[in-house]
């Protein structure tokens, strides 16, 4: 069986830590680490959202269109 998921430590300014600690009181977040993880995931996801990437080549796309036409999905 695999080891427990590994965690690492990052440093944030103490005043910011205190601010976050206060902010998460009464929310579903059980620790500052949880909240910071949540925020970082959100930020990273929105950055990645902006990066465009081609999924297939033009040739492949044409082949797919032919099939979609044959099946009646495209005119």
């Amino acid at each position, binding site marked *: *069986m*695999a080891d*427990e*998921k590994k965690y690492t430590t990052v440093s944030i300014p103490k005043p910011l830590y205190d601010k976050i600690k206060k902010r998460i009181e009464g929310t*579903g977040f059980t620790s500052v680490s949880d909240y910071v993880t*949540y*925020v970082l*995931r*959100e930020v*990273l*996801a929105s950055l*990645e*959202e902006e*990066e*465009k*990437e081609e*999924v*297939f080549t033009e040739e*492949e*796309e044409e082949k*797919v*269109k032919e*099939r*979609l036409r044959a*099946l009646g*999905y*495209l005119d």
Partner: protein
Amino acid sequence: MVSKPHGGRLVRRLVADRTRERILSEQKEYPAIKIDHGRAIDLENIAHGVYSPLKGFLTSDDFQSVLDHMRLSDDTPWTIPIVLDINERTFDEGDAVLLYYGDLPIARMHVEEIYTYDKEEFAKKVFKTTDSAHPGVAKVYSMGKYLVGGEIELLNEVPNPFAKYTLRPVETRVLFKERGWKTIVAFQTRNVPHLGHEYVQKAALTFVDGLFINPVLGKKKKGDYKDEVIIKAYETLFEHYYPKDAATLATVRYEMRYAGPREAVHHAIMRKNFGATHFIVGRDHAGVGDYYGPYEAWDMFDNFPDLGITPMFIREAFYCRKCGGMVNAKICPHPEEFHVRISGTKLRKMIMAGEQPPEYMMRPEVYEVIRSFEKPFVE
């Protein structure tokens, strides 16, 4: 722009024709594993990118991470373990094996790891119960002693009587692009449509460019509608009641796990891979019995700010005699006595008794389609 594939890249594990021929000509040289229909469908879904970013069945690192954190070991959200089980070790790590569905070689797998696992832990973490009356738990308890992890390459498609309606992510992505849809809401279903479904779908469509109805075809239990009935019923509904330039229908094969909240997220990930930007999360989504709260799946999405597809939480619709139309609890001010809840079970009973449901429950055209089948239900 439609959704980026989950994990960033659409996985495609199909081999070139020449490689395929070579592998098949050497098939006797590979150790063989027989797999059931559900695993064969999983394989196909991996190969066509429905399960992107998975390239194969989970290795122990990913498996444990999914159980413990609902994420792959690289932190990508992933809630349902996609695993291959065996009873006996007849090959080793590092071997290439062929996976057979019946007598048909479906895929080659590069065995990275063979490992043991705790079935109770699997059940408890994924299904939140160890009760073997839960169909997902029962399935886990019936699995083999070992799990095999490693990448796969698809050699043959699993026979599909509905191939015409089964689009792959690469196809839906082109389709959405050609239609000029930038925002698409996906709806998962295993039933013929009633007015409650139509209300929810159209409410969601109001906010996006296109509606993608994606019925799940596959293993059914006695009394369920047959796959062909569901398809024909939706085709009829589309013909009469849906805007042609804003809605499309394609099926996906998938074996339900009934894992409730966890599976709702999995369903959303699959639709993200098809290109959908939004996903309708239903009441008691992917639930069974009373193992999960009616809106527990909605809360689950709070854990995934980085999911990359927007869940749409639309309350269950019902007919209100006072409002004179389909509404939901949030927008209807009238008391319960005016409400007519549309239950799939109740509709099935009416249909089985040869009774036509009222028009505020089911479109007459849909009823006609069901009636046109001599045996519309699985026996």
